[in-house]
């Protein structure tokens, strides 16, 4: 069957079976930044923004997404011009193997659009279904808090290429007046 999607601003006509899952369809179309880490619907690696809300693409049949506007990790910043969220992840060493990171960044984008100044608890809650085996969540949480600060204009300039060392990471935490203790 034919489906049409708008992916990262481009319209795509796709031939697929109606219940093909959206993650596989997007990966087939070359959006391999959409990762698959579980047998579906649990790990968060396949999150994309569907009409602005972060959803696990593997858990959605392509027919349910027909006509939708989708943003994948490939549509959020580029290697030359990282999105402030991506830059914050880089600067805070929040990326290790990177497999969970596209989903994590997609989720962060939704979070910060809805809650521009989240508390640490809100950040942890938001990425609660983004499983990461590498980082222990500490640096991703710091990165997300700092990304919020950057996007609110009260943090470092996101794309200056600067690499604040990890201790600076805490500034975001303090600014938001909350720790996990």
């Amino acid at each position: 069957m034919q489906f049409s999607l708008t992916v990262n601003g481009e319209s795509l006509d796709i031939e697929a079976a109606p219940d093909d899952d959206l993650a596989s369809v997007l990966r087939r179309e070359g959006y391999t930044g959409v990762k698959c880490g579980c047998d579906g619907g649990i790990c968060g690696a396949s999150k994309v923004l569907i009409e602005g809300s972060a959803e696990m693409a593997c858990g959605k049949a392509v027919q349910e997404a027909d006509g939708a506007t989708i943003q994948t990790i490939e549509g959020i910043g580029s290697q030359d011009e990282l999105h402030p969220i991506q830059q914050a992840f880089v600067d805070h060493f929040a990326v290790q193997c990177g497999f969970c990171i596209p989903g994590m960044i997609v989720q962060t984008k939704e979070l910060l659009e809805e809650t521009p100044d989240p508390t640490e608890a809100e950040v942890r809650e938001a990425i609660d279904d983004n499983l990461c085996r590498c980082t222990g969540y500490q640096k991703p949480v710091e990165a997300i808090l700092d990304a919020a600060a950057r996007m609110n204009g009260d943090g470092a300039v996101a794309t200056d290429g600067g690499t604040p060392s990890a201790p600076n990471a805490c500034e975001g935490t303090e600014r938001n007046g909350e720790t996990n203790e």
Partner: protein
Amino acid sequence: MSNENDPKPDGGTASHPEQDVTEFEDHPLEWDEPENNNLAPDERASVSQSAEKDDDPKLVTGQAKYTADYEKKFPDLAHAAVVRSDVPHGRVANIDTNDAEEMDGVHAVLTPWSDETPDAKYTSAGQSYPEPSPWDMNVLNEHVRYIGDPVAAIAADDAETARAAADAIEVEYEENDYVLDPEEAYSEDAPQIFGDDEVENKIVGHDYSRNRMSQIEGEIGDVDGAVDRDDVHVHETEWETIRQSHAQIEKHTTLAYTDEDDRHVLVTSTQVPNHTRRQLAHLFDIPIRDIRVSKPRVGGGFGGKQAMVVEPIPLALALAADRPVIYEATREEEFAGMRSRHPMKVRARTAVTDDGSIEAIDLYALSNTGAYGSHGMTVAGNVGSKPMPLYSKVPNARFKADIVHTNTPQTGAMRGYGAPQGTLALEGHLDEVARDLDLDPIEFRKRHYMEVGDLDEIAGMMGGEGAERRIRSCGLDECIERGMDAIGWGDIDQPDEEHRHRGIGMALSAQGTGVAGDELGAAQLMMNEDGSFHLHVGGVDIGTGADTAFIQIAAEVLGCPETDIVIKSSDTDVTPFDYGAYASSTTYISGMAVKKAAEDAKERILHWGSKLLEEPEANLETGDGEVYSEETGESVSLEEIGYEAAYGHDEREHILGKGTHCTEESPPPFAAQFADVTVDEETGEFEVNKLVVAVDCGVAINPGMAEGQVEGANHMSYEMAVSEGITFDDDGRSEVTSFGDYDWPTASETPTIESILVETHEPTGPFGAKSVAEVPTNTVPPALSNAIRETVGVRITDMPITPEKIRAALEDDE
């Protein structure tokens, strides 16, 4: 081939109680360290700077390629599915593949009897050669030993068809009795899992009539003598650990094909490209040179991808189907068919005098290695040989382990490698002893732990040449001091409610850095005419940032910006040899090979600099992308040198550097762990307020990345303290089939983890570095058990620590 008389020194593998301790001279106190290896902080240009992780821009934009992302390059790619045993123990009596073979889109069906299925025995362990693991398995098994053992494999047009074909295969089993509990398995009348003729390369201490794959023992001094003295208190405690899954978010994935030159190529998510190549050559009887193993980005390893778990299957299928085949394990297979941490029972016994002098430590482990023996002996050896040396001042020490088979999935290498099990027992035990004798738990440890200058004989007590070591760097004091500060030791507020209590527990740990005397790393550096470099290194970056550390080490030597170095790692056709990413060896061993390669190239760079500047080489140094004269201040850029070397008139040269590195050294990194907990004495509910872990990893090549390693390891350690791991029903079926069943701490369930790096200088490591990524895996279970004991007075010894167990213990107490 037999290993029995040739045990490998993989951290303690053989029973050699009578062995002579290596002579003092072999471990001189003074290490002949090259001057350029010890840079003061202000002399470091790349090293110990938090340089941006080399692959990050690709990773954060979704452009990085992992194995599954190569699919599109192969239009005729087939997908694999595996039929796995449905019974815990039995023999395949009949297998009907007709329906599967007739399905549309099916290209190959393999059973244990197919021509393309290798029939050689092997181990999936992914260790050096000869492997200190038994060759006890087949790629596809007629004798199945756990639910999940591979029996047949299919290649089809797509994953769904392959799965459907797998489901259409009917297997009849002749079922055998099975045993799941290691203590039961280790008795004369238990069902025997291996016939004596079913194992090659048997390991020291095996007794398959009792399902024992190995038994090891080592001792220094006279433990029994010390225990019998009448001026000592003898304490004994027993501990139990979970079966933890590696749970890498990227599943095991391999893509195999035969290229236009008839060479067999595997793009695979592995930690050990060279060991994988060697094991495949053995299985398929193909020359090593005709196999190419290439590692793209890897989505986490943690030891799970040291095992050659899936690679032979897609290769056999690719040969049978005559087309490229990809096999991506399912998450269910990850939990039931891949590897996991050896669950163990560990008994700790000490003899301690009234005034708190430890006269003897005696540790015994019963390890459940599951259905096969990969890493069985060596992981068990490390239960003793990693944690016990921490207390190198104790005169009498003994370690013994029995490693037994059960009809449960295979275990294997996992971050920490036996040290978490041993550390729980030892650090929990010492805490209990300190309480009993009314000693300060920290001062009690300090009296006995390692110091710089000590000759650590305990590390060598299990045999294996060169396993004793001289301690040349030790930041334990500072780890403890800074950790105490950060956690607020002795300075915490109690909750207002009377039934809630707050307290802190601590634990220490030591690991190793590489396997002493059993590692090899190599690197090659090629200079381009524009002054940039290609760095080819066998070392394996599985997400740790090793590539970046390699670049930083090379950049420090060459005096060039990191961005001028293009790295290519872990492709056996292109990059030099390496043992792979395990045993915390990558920065230390492969990193030193990189340093040597860079120094080799630098020699030639200085030669050309001398020519262009007309100054003796001795006056020249590299820095800021130039060769400059310390005498005249004149300089010439690396680019000018590159062009002159490539296109000069009277002399030409491709500037190349090579380095290989191996060593008998394995310096321990150290960790001091602190856990702050609040416990409700009515319900047993507890909340971990904060974890602090201070680590001495020598000089951190990249502090930002090193902190990330520490925090990730500590999270994994926290999981071992509070989560159930993989459990089985009475039939031996895994109760965990998805992440939904695997109860590990998510972001909101994970406390703040504060990592502290304590810098020391390890003269045997590149620029003073030793390992970092394993030691913080060992420490949360004992620290949390100790914290609960401190807070509400009950001791939890079997992991995980749960509110139910605490409540039950509190009720018992009353």
